[in-house]
């Protein structure tokens, strides 16, 4: 088990290095934003049918827009690379063009995607609908944790707002959008059910994290996050945590005071890597957490898989360092 982990982390590191080299080559031409592929219809058909051009500041929101908008919406995601730290994203002129073209924009708020406000202000458009998730949820600016999509109550409200706005932009297709909204809401039940199971079996289980990305999910599952907030905030903001905090988190792992170590795969530094090693050495199951939608996933399947990985860790001590 241990040597396997070591081998895994070694191949991981090698593939990371290779990946960087490739990326630095490919990065010159490829833009970081990708259109999410439409669920059905050929490309020609899609262009013919497209009436609405939508942008999700993060691919998580773009995925939900696409699910609600279906064949009548073409969606672009600005932050979409699961191999980068979204907190440090910088906008390019191409992004500005996408924002200028958009009829519907969904953004997170809470300083997570501030760049998009500037781009919106730079290209005024009265016919554009903007859903700011922070505003939608009525969260104050002082909300410390910006990762709103990990809160189970968030996305149903966002999806509803998307459906409403799409219906305003294309009233003819209102029934279609509402139907998709209904399907989306139904499909979230698998996730809710998975959370309920963890909550029922493992309430108050102590866990540690590197970064606050999934804190709201942990709260929903009634797990106890033992990591000091100041530590989580420092990792999130790319500053150094205090030696005291580092020591606290190390002790949590060494003394087996936590059942699971939740590791943000997109916000990594030498310290988080050393904690990952420490967790592995002490046989504390690790669950890899993502900030943006991983490849080959929908929002629902991603969230469900994270909770299932968490359950595997709590129940059978199985690590899931990366979602497939």
């Amino acid at each position: 088990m241990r040597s396997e982990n070591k081998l895994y982390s070694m191949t991981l590191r090698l593939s990371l290095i290779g990946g960087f080299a490739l990326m630095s080559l490919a990065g010159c031409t490829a833009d970081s934003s990708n259109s999410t592929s439409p669920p059905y219809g050929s490309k020609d058909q899609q262009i013919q049918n497209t009436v609405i051009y939508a942008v999700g500041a993060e691919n998580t929101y773009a995925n939900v827009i696409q699910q609600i908008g279906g064949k009548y919406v073409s969606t672009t995601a600005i932050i979409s690379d699961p191999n980068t730290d979204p907190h440090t994203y910088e906008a390019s002129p191409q992004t500005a063009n996408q924002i200028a073209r958009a009829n519907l924009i969904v953004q997170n708020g809470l300083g997570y995607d501030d760049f998009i406000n500037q781009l919106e202000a730079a290209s005024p458009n009265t016919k554009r609908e903007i859903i700011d998730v922070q505003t939608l949820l009525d969260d104050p600016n002082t909300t410390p944790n910006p990762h709103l999509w990990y809160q189970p109550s968030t996305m149903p409200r966002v999806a509803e707002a998307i459906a409403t706005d799409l219906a305003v932009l294309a009233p003819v297709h209102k029934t279609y959008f509402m139907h998709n909204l209904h399907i989306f809401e139904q499909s979230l039940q698998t996730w809710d059910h998975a959370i309920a199971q963890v909550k029922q079996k493992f309430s108050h289980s102590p866990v540690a994290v590197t970064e606050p990305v999934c804190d709201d999910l942990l709260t929903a599952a009634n797990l106890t996050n033992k990591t000091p907030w100041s530590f989580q905030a420092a990792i999130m903001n790319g500053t150094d945590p205090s030696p005291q905090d580092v020591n606290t988190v190390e002790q949590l792992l060494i003394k087996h005071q936590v059942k699971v170590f939740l590791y943000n795969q997109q916000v990594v530094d030498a310290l988080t890597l050393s904690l990952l090693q420490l967790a592995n050495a002490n046989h504390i199951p690790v669950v890899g957490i993502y900030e943006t939608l991983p490849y080959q996933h929908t929002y629902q399947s991603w969230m469900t898989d994270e909770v299932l990985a968490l359950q595997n860790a709590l129940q059978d001590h199985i690590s899931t360092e990366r979602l497939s």
Partner: protein
Amino acid sequence: MITKFLNFLLAPGLFQSPQVAHALILGSVVAITSAIVGVFAVIRGQAFAGHALADFGATGASGAFLLGINTLWGFIGMGLLGGLGMDMLGRTPRERDVTTGITLSFMLGLGSLFLYYVTTKTTATGAPMTIFFGSIFLVNPSIVSIVIILELVTLLLLVILYRPLLLSSINPDLAYTRGVPLRTVSLLFMSALVLTVEQSALVTGALLSTVLLIGPAAIAIRLTKRLGTTLLLSVFVGLVTMWLSIVLAYDSAQLPPVGRGWPVSFFVVSIILLFYSVIYSFTTKGSK
């Protein structure tokens, strides 16, 4: 009251923390070497060269982040390249000024490209803060022994160079007539300077790495004229500054924002400035 103050000064866990222990070892070797090399750098008028070398190193460190290797190798690799270039290209001082300026701008530009890739294309977080302002508490423990060896090499180099370096620093013409190989001495000293500054960058970051080089040296030079005493005093000031800074940075977790801790580099520069101002005002008054 007193216990409360003591409790603040030596915050709980200070002596148990492995991070603090590593920081103290690393900080001490860096402070000692910087203080000694710094005296020669100040005499030779190469304080600015030291700063330029650290900036070169920052580009290397950014590249190291991109490749996922330890920043120390990036700092030293690019620093040596930069030092070599600076020593080879510029013969006259004015020429050296211009060539250094242009290559330095280019290198920092290259660094900005590397950092752009690090922040937008990799999962790495906090790279700019680490490179430019240092993170001594989070230095990989495996690097500490390497730093100790490299600092010993640097000091050994200085011991070998001592006499010719001293002569060529104070009176180059006399050194030339005495048959001192000026180019070789200059190149070797440049290498020592690179090693010193780049390892200091691990502690205080690239932007502030010259503070440990010129700060203690400048203070010591103000206080005494004898070289041996200057070197000892410089080391003393460097060490005291380093230790105070590490302890204060550890304590500062009790200051707002509670639990976060202020950067060590902030304390280093503050203490050096304080020392220097006090010594400066005293020595100027005394001479009048």
